[in-house]
């Protein structure tokens, strides 16, 4: 073998198709197969099957037999809904449209809420509108058309599912492993840094960066449960343990956050003197975390837990000032919690890789109160309003104006609208221009290439090339528009008639539909992502301000106040992710002053702030000792008011420069509190017998949460000062 041949052989051996190429081949193959089957069997409108494949491929939530089954259930639901609505309102168009809009609202709501079955509800929605858009004069025609549509959609789903399951099956187990390994490594590093005896500015900087990584890994891991490939057998087998792993890691992150707040109050004392064996204690926890990481990574970690005890030098502890004693009590509890959690994490990692251990039920979720369960998500409500109005108005456009596309106005806007309702960041304005050019391109193929095709093989080759190119080269809205172009322009029947005027009218129809959806998408939020981001950030600070105000009242909260608190807590918890989604849609070329790095820091600042607010709320609800000094209460109340004022300032002006003010306020509050507690040391000594360790911990946890929240606010303030909010208000052509 010559050198050249050897190089060629090596290149062939090394050649691997990228995941994107594999995905594109799978979709193209499924699209060709369903068209061949439908044409061969001479079914009514054979392109319906291709439409189902393309629609599912655009929303690749799950590619397993189980998910394929769920989608089939969705089609059957859609068929029943379609026939039921036709039965209830065959001659009453307003009733018909209202019921159709209601069905779309229901399926969209379920699609958002029930993430596990969102594919089912997506199919139940789009297949129903597809059946309503059929041409039928009698009830028999309606039944036949609905049945054919259902059969062809089911055939599309079955073929697509079989192709994706048997050819290069996807599994995201490697993503789960990668994220878990990264998360556990970050947490091991955080513990080392938090309890470090010397906290230098360098250590603080590394700690901040590692905490940022930890947050990203936690978010990524949660999303990975719903990502493509998560429903494969390999992942589903141990999904309960994966979820438990995530839940334990969240608890450990919260514990580290509190530990960090507590340790910052111990800066003036020698921690190694109070806990002589702290280093071994810390090393054991770190070792367990590293073992868990290795077990998940390659199954090679050591599954062994040694009991470690936190020995305290009680004599030294008694000699400390009361404020320092309180601070240590809180940190001690957190160190003990970290030890328990690290043991559970190691055990959980072992269970994930051990196939002999199985768990049918997922890790139990935190119990929510009735208030938390009943509060509405404003954005979900908007999405429901949007899809209902869109469906209703699209039908009105057809009835009153009858523009090009005619009855298909009932088909495209609700189908695309469902995607926009779930993902409001989808830039529908960006669809109008690509739609015009891409649809015109497919119109040219329809006019010039398709009439020259003489066999099913040639037609299949054309379909394969088109679909492959779309899924390989295009993404985002371009992909959506191009797929709609193929399914609506390159339609094939056994008796094919080419009609340029009809096809050209369909281009006008598609472009008009996107413009129509764009106008109505203002109901959700501004379709300009930078505006939406600013609006959501203002909403975030409004909720933070209200939460501060509501929590300050001493009296027991009534039903309305409980709802208010639950609502604002929900907003604080969920808005960071929504803001992140919108930030991804901002085009940095249009706003060069706000670089992606600056935006990343801003998002991290908001996420950290949310975590601190959550900890602050939890600490506020803990039972406190009756012997709490009134001066302490007053100081905390003053601190609360100060924080509320800062949140109000940010709500009114996102660009407020407040970092130095927050920093000086924080120092003042800490110094005053320390002074208050130390001044009353005699009183505290007297009360020692009646104040339990738990109450001491709760008190310092409360002080620590104020401290932590102020630190997060300083961090956010320094980041937001680097963002040019005015720059985002500038108008540009998107």
């Amino acid at each position, binding site marked *: 073998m010559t050198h050249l041949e050897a190089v060629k052989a090596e290149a062939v051996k090394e050649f691997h198709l990228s995941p994107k190429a594999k995905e594109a081949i799978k979709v193209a193959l499924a699209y060709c197969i369903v068209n061949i089957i439908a044409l061969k069997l001479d079914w009514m409108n054979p392109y319906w099957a291709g439409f189902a494949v393309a629609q599912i491929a655009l929303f690749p939530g799950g590619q397993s037999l189980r998910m394929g089954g769920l989608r089939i259930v969705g089609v059957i639901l859609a068929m029943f809904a379609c026939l039921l609505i036709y039965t209830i309102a065959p001659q009453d168009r307003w009733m018909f449209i209202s019921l159709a809009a209601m069905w779309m609202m229901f399926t969209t709501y379920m699609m958002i809420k029930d993430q596990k079955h969102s594919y089912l509800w997506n199919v139940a929605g789009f297949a129903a509108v597809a059946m309503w858009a059929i041409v039928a004069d009698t009830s028999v025609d309606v039944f036949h058309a609905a049945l054919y549509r259902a059969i062809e959609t089911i055939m599309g789903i079955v073929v697509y599912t079989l192709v994706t399951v048997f050819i290069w099956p996807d599994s995201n187990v490697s993503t789960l492993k990668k994220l878990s390994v990264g998360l556990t490594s970050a947490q091991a590093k955080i513990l080392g840094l938090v309890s470090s005896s010397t906290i230098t500015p360098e250590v603080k900087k590394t700690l901040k960066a590692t905490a940022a990584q930890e947050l990203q890994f936690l978010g990524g891991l949660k999303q990975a449960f719903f990502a493509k490939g998560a429903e494969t057998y390999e992942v589903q087998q141990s999904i309960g343990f994966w979820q438990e792993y995530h839940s334990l890691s969240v608890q450990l992150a919260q514990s580290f956050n509190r530990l960090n707040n507590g340790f910052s109050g111990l800066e003036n004392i020698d921690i190694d003197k109070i806990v002589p064996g702290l280093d071994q204690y810390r090393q054991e926890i770190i070792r367990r975390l590293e073992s868990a990481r290795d077990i998940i990574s390659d199954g090679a970690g050591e599954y062994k837990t040694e009991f470690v005890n936190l020995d305290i030098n009680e004599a030294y502890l008694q000699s400390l000032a009361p404020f320092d004693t309180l601070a240590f009590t809180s940190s001690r509890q957190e160190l003990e919690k970290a030890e328990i959690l690290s043991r559970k994490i190691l055990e959980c990692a072992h269970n994930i890789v051990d196939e002999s251990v199985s768990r049918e039920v997922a890790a139990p979720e935190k119990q929510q109160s009735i208030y938390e369960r009943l509060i509405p998500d404003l954005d979900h409500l908007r999405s429901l309003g949007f899809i209902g109005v869109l469906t209703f108005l699209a039908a009105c456009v057809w009835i009153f104006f009858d523009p090009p596309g005619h009855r298909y106005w009932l088909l495209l806007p609700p189908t695309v609208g469902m995607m926009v309702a779930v993902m409001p960041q989808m830039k529908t*304005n960006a669809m109008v*221009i690509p739609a*015009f050019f891409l649809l*015109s391109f497919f119109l040219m193929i329809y*006019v*010039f290439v398709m009439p020259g095709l003489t066999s099913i093989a040639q037609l299949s080759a054309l379909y394969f090339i088109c679909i492959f190119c779309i899924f390989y080269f295009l993404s985002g809205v371009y992909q959506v528009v191009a797929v709609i172009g193929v399914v609506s322009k390159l339609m094939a029947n056994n008796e094919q008639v080419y009609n*340029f005027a009809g096809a*050209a009218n369909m281009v006008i129809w598609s472009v008009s539909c996107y413009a129509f959806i*764009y106008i109505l998408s203002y109901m959700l939020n501004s379709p300009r992502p930078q505006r939406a981001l600013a609006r959501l950030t203002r909403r975030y600070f409004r909720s933070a301000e209200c939460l501060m105000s509501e929590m300050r009242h001493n009296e027991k909260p009534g039903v309305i106040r409980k709802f208010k608190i639950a609502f604002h807590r929900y907003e604080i918890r969920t808005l960071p992710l929504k803001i992140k989604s919108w930030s991804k849609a901002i085009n940095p070329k*249009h706003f060069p002053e706000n670089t992606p790095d600056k935006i990343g820091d801003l998002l991290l600042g908001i996420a950290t702030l949310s975590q601190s607010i959550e900890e602050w709320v939890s600490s506020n609800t803990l039972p406190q000792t009756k012997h709490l000094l009134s001066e302490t209460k007053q100081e905390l109340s003053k601190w609360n008011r100060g924080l509320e004022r800062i949140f109000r300032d940010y709500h009114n002006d996102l660009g407020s420069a407040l970092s130095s003010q927050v920093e000086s306020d924080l120092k003042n509050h800490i110094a005053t509190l320390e002074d208050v507690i130390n001044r009353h040391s005699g009183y505290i000594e007297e009360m020692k017998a009646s104040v339990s360790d738990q109450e001491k911990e709760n008190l310092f946890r409360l002080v620590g949460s104020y401290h932590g929240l102020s630190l997060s606010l300083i961090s956010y303030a320094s980041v937001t000062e680097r963002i040019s909010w005015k720059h985002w208000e*500038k*108008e*540009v*052509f*998107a």
Partner: protein
Amino acid sequence: MSVPIEFNIGGVYMPPLLIAAVLGIVTAVVAARYLNKYNLARHFYYPPLVFVALSTIFTVIYGWLIVPF
């Protein structure tokens, strides 16, 4: 007065309005890019509507000067 003439492309007769509209939209896209590049878009209250207006204006200009429809 100019008489509307259909465009024969590969044996398919295209209406002149379609050709004028394609040219109008392409020109509007180019104009929008330049307005963004030279930071002039900030003077408009609502760019999406301005884009629709530009497309219409350019289509009419093309219809008036080059492709009567």
